[in-house]
């Protein structure tokens, strides 16, 4: 029955002191929620990531070979124990242009089942010349679905060696589980970093061997990624794959060698055939030539004969001609004679005619005189005779004339004969000339043929020679053919994959610090509350004891009270915290991992139990100790008021001149603060924790936004960086720098070598940018190398290199150490670090050209030009960049603004974390202050009532209490500032991502904001307290001491 009364008392107690009950409930709830929630975030991140990867059927193991992978390799990997699925894929890095920029993309084939891409827009490629593009890149670039892109290899091989076509149509946008973050990895072509990935169908590749094999490990899917179980399982199988590596490498090697040797043999056979052919050809040619020569020579002889014949005919003809001419001359003489005979004849005729006339005249004169007659007779006779003579002559002439005419006819026929002979000769001559010409042509042809044959033979011989040399080379090549090398990777090789795991680890680190802080406060609060409760009920305890209740029955009430509040609070905290905190944080991280849209937040019982257990231990422990102390005492003693606490002199009193100046209220305050140590520490811790949380919240923001300012205004004082086209001529490159120099917007330029290299220390290898400025003296105008803390500026010197801080830390290097540069061609190169310099974005290794030369054995080939604009605005930098990209020599331009954008993105993702921190801080501050004030007021009710009786106005009474609160708040804030600064240092280093170093600073304004917020919280609580103070009844002062 007694238990029943006690039980009733117990419930009444809760109802009566609901405020206290709730305050324990809430502080436990907040503490447990925060602890279990933040702690659960880490596994939840892993679960969420794992769920996403499982959904996308991400591979576990990737095998890459330097010489491709065959179907046999796939079979071999498949046969490895522990491998469940194997798929082969193709990939190649290619260059393409986007706007004015040349970018590198990673082209890969879509696998049948593994590494499934998530279609975000458009459709998946179906034809050989279709592709889908990285959605992140598609969104920020000028590419659109429906555009075509043309790839080039960026090496001396053609892209079509790898792909069937070089032009693809973009048909969709995808995200890939292989690229969960913003990074797309590095490459050996172009700018050295991949901007986007592109997926094409299997058939788009023209390669006859796979470039990679993807494998899944049996049972790995059931394990959670980023956990040791998963890692161990994969590691185990990975080792088995490694085990067949040698054999497969050798097999592939043999295959290549066999193939090559076969080819070599074929080639050798071909060469031999060719040689034979050449020999045959040579003989044939010679024979042919000889024949041709003989024919030609025969022709010549014939020709010569013809010639001499012609000559003799000519001579004959000449002779005939002479005879004819002689005949003609004779004939002409005869004709002349004839003519003279004719003339004589004519004269005789004339004389006759004269005689006739005389006769006629005489006859006509009639004179018959003798004389006349005689004369006439004589004349007559004469005429007669003359006529006879003439007739004879005429006869003679007539015969002569016919003789001449016959001669002439004879001569004429002779001439005719000659003419025909001449024509004959002419013809013969012509024939001869033709024949001669023909012969000459024949010879020419012959010589040509001969030369040709010789040339051909020589060529053939040369070719055979070359072929033989090639054969020899090929043989040598086969002899020192590189053995193919297999690289077997797990998922860590995927860009940012391990980063996600690191983030989860970071969450754990945060989870190990923040919630502990909360929890500590929660524990302390419940401790004070319960202690107070037990102390308050001292008389009650005494009475119960006096009535004869056993100790455990009495203690049960308080323990039960604490237990109920704690269990309820824990339950609520776990249910709430494990859902809400992981959800908020994973969603916040979603900004960095945009496509990992799977959120898994199961209840992690262990953290809930851990937190609840700790809360229970704290509250029950505290309750137990308070009860124990009270219960140990005698009932009678308990009935009496506890011996008043000793007033104490404090240290300040010893400084008399100061102490004297304090009025009594301050004295009381100071003494109170010192006296109630528990409360002092609680308040300071609570306020300090609250302040620290807010400083961390604001400080993270400061540190990140500081990156932009520090990096781009104080360290890298240039606005853009032009990457030169390596294929461009020297002249074109020079043109770029000339253009830049002439640009009015440009204040200064600097050529340099900027290339991604791998550096390491011991076993750890990391990628950094090697930066070799051309002009060491003016380098500080563009990049300020300095110590972060002392701000001491360093100059590059030939004594060593300068490494940026974050990388130095990651590789555990400091000034004076030796860093190893891993070069593909030159092997490992060691160099001394002279200084470590401040830097926030990316990692750099700076060295002078002469150090470079010493190291690499060659002069640096400058591939970039950075420029600084006059006013250093984004517009200017863009304008300059756009103009310069029109130059052949300019490959791409990167602007510092883009990087600033990256910083802004990061800030965005942290905003929510900061809000969570500030709200939590506010809650913490409120609960702590409310609780402590509450306790403090209850404890000092009597004192306060007395003050009221003494005539203190409400304001004065409040001031009496508040003065303490203000001082405690101030001290707490001060403590919070220190704690916050330390916590911030820790957090900032923990949450940093690999490529970025956050600032280590917290702005004064953040301290101020945090302080003001703390003051606001504090004022709010004190405001609530005011009413509580007002309600204190003065009659309390008349009561006896409890």
């Amino acid at each position, binding site marked *: 029955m007694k238990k029943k009364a006690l039980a009733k008392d117990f419930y009444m107690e809760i109802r009566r002191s609901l405020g206290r009950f709730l305050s324990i409930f809430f502080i436990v709830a907040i503490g447990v929620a925060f602890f279990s929630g933040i702690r659960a975030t880490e596994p939840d991140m892993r679960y969420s990531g794992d769920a996403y990867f499982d959904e996308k059927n991400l591979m576990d193991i990737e095998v890459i070979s330097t010489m491709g992978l065959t179907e046999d390799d796939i079979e071999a990997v498949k046969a490895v124990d522990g491998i469940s699925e194997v798929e082969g894929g193709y990939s190649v890095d290619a260059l393409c242009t986007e706007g004015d920029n040349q970018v590198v993309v990673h082209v890969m084939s879509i696998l049948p089942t593994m590494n499934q891409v998530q279609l975000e827009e458009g459709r998946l490629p179906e034809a050989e010349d279709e592709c889908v593009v990285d959605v992140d890149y598609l969104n920020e670039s000028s590419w659109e679905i429906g555009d075509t892109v043309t790839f080039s290899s960026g090496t001396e091989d053609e892209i079509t060696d790898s792909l069937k076509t070089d032009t693809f149509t973009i048909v969709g946008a995808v995200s890939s589980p292989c690229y969960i973050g913003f990074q797309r990895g590095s490459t050996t072509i172009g700018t050295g970093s991949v901007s986007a990935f592109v997926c094409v169908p299997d058939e788009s590749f023209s390669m006859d061997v796979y470039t990679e094999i993807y494998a899944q490990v049996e049972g790995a899917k059931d394990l959670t990624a980023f956990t040791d179980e998963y890692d161990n399982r994969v590691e185990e199988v990975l080792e088995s794959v490694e085990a067949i590596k040698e054999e497969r490498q050798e097999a592939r090697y043999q295959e290549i060698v066999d193939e090559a040797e076969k080819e070599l043999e074929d080639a050798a056979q071909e060469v031999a055939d060719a040689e034979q052919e050449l020999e045959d050809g040579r003989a044939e040619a010679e024979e042919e030539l000889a024949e041709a020569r003989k024919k030609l020579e025969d022709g010549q002889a014939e020709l010569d004969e013809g010639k001499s014949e012609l000559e003799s005919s000519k001579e004959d003809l000449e002779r005939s001609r002479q005879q004819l001419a002689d005949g003609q001359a004779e004939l002409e003489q005869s004709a002349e004679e004839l003519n003279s005979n004719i003339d004589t004849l004519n004269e005789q005729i004339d004389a006759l005619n004269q005689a006739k006339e005389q006769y006629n005249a005489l006859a006509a004169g009639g004179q018959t005189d003798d004389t006349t007659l005689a004369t006439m007779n004589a004349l007559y006779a004469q005429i007669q005779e003359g006529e006879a003579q003439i007739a004879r002559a005429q006869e003679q002439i007539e015969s002569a004339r016919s003789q001449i005419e016959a001669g002439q006819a004879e001569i004429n026929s002779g001439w005719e004969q000659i003419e025909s002979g001449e024509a004959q000769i002419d013809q013969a001559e012509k024939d001869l000339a033709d024949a001669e010409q023909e012969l000459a042509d024949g010879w020419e042809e012959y010589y040509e043929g001969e030369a040709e044959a010789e040339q051909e033979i020589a060529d053939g011989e040369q070719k055979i020679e070359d072929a033989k040399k090639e054969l020899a080379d090929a043989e040598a090549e086969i002899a020192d053919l590189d053995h193919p090398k297999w690289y077997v990777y797990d998922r860590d090789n995927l860009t940012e994959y391990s980063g996600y795991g690191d983030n989860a680890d970071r969450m754990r680190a945060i989870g190990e610090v923040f919630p502990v802080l909360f929890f500590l406060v929660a524990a302390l609060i419940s401790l004070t509350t319960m202690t107070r409760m037990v102390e308050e009920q001292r008389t009650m305890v005494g009475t119960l004891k006096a009535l004869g209740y056993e100790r455990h029955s009495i203690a049960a009430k308080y323990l039960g009270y604490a237990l109920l509040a704690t269990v309820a609070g824990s339950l609520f905290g776990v249910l709430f915290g494990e859902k809400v905190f992981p959800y908020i944080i994973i969603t916040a991280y979603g900004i960095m991992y945009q496509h990992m849209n799977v959120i898994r937040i199961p209840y992690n019982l262990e953290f809930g139990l851990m937190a609840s257990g700790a809360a229970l231990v704290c509250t029950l422990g505290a309750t137990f100790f308070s009860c124990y102390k009270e219960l140990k005492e005698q009932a009678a003693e308990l009935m009496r008021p506890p011996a008043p606490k000793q*007033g104490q002199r404090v240290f300040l009193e010893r400084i008399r001149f100061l102490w004297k100046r304090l009025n009594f209220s301050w*004295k009381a305050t100071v003494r109170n603060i010192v006296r109630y140590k528990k409360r002092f520490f609680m308040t300071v811790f609570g306020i300090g924790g609250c302040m620290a949380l807010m400083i961390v919240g604001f400080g993270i923001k400061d540190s990140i936004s500081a990156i932009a300012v520090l990096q781009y205004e104080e360290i890298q004082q240039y606005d853009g960086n032009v990457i030169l086209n390596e294929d461009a001529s020297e002249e074109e490159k020079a043109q770029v720098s000339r253009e830049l120099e002439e640009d009015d917007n440009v204040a200064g330029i600097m050529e340099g070598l900027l290339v991604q290299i791998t550096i390491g220390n011991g076993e750890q290898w990391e990628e950094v940018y090697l930066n070799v400025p051309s002009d060491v003296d003016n380098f500080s105008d563009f990049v300020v190398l300095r110590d972060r803390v002392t701000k001491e500026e360093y100059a590059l010197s030939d004594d060593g290199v300068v490494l940026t801080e974050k990388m130095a830390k990651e590789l555990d290097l400091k000034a004076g150490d030796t860093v190893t540069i891993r070069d593909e061609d030159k092997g490992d190169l060691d160099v001394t670090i002279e200084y470590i310099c401040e830097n926030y974005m990316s990692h750099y290794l700076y060295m002078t050209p002469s150090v470079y030369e010493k190291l690499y054995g060659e002069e640096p080939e400058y591939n970039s030009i950075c420029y600084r604009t006059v006013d250093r605005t984004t517009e200017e930098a863009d304008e300059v960049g756009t103009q310069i990209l029109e130059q052949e020599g300019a490959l791409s331009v990167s602007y510092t603004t883009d990087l600033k954008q990256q910083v802004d993105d990061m800030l965005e993702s942290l905003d929510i974390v900061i809000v969570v921190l500030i709200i939590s801080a506010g809650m913490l501050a409120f609960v702590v202050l409310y609780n402590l004030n509450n306790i403090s007021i209850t404890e000092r009710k009597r004192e306060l009532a007395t003050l009221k009786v003494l*005539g203190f106005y409400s304001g004065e009474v409040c001031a009496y209490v508040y003065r303490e609160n203000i001082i405690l708040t101030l001290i707490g804030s001060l403590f919070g500032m220190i704690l916050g600064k330390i916590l911030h240092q820790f957090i900032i280093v923990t949450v940093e991502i690999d490529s970025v170093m956050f600032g280590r600073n917290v702005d004064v304004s953040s301290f101020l904001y945090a302080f003001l917020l703390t003051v606001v919280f504090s004022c709010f609580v004190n405001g609530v307290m005011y009413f509580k103070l007002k309600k204190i009844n003065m009659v309390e002062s008349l009561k006896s001491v409890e």
Partner: protein
Amino acid sequence: MEEFVKLQDITKIYKMGEVEIRAADRISFSIQKGEFVVIVGPSGAGKTTVLNILGGMDTATDGKLIVDGEDITSYNSRKLTGYRREDIGFVFQFYNLVPNLTALENVELALQICKDPLDAKEVLEDVGLGDRLDNFPAQLSGGEQQRVSIARALAKNPKLLLCDEPTGALDYNTGKAILKLLQNMCRERGMTVIVITHNQALAPMADRLIHIKNGQVSKMELNENPMSIDEIEW
């Protein structure tokens, strides 16, 4: 002499749910300046209610209280506080000293809000604690603590000194010494002192004796020749 303190039909009703409790039922009496008044009555008679109302710690439901010509019952809470700080000195049964302040500081605590206080040190010397000025309450005996309490009340130079069972927590001798001190203060300084007690034995030392019973003044006596406390035994 005129009436320095005058109560007229002071009634105080506490409402406890449905039940009304008349803690004071039309109490009327007056006190003259410089009188040593003892109010006696059994537990629960309404003494403390009267004291609370007199001290400005509580307001009457009905009736009128006039102190030094001022109508206290018409005061609001702020004016009441002013009344307490300027006109009233209070001596508690359990001393109610601030444990964190020394004797001197406890007195100063009251003084700093007064307009016309006495010197704290002198008052403490007057109550016989000249050598315990820098002691904390916990280092003082009950009587000594009550002396500090009295000194604190006196130093304010109040019009009325109200003492609620000042000897209640003290042994006989110490109680006597304290009463002696109060009587002396009244006589020497002309302070009006009102002592509330259930101890009838103190009656002879009062100038005016008021009996309260069941929330009413049952009897009021004026004592022409009050006895010195030294002569009273109980």
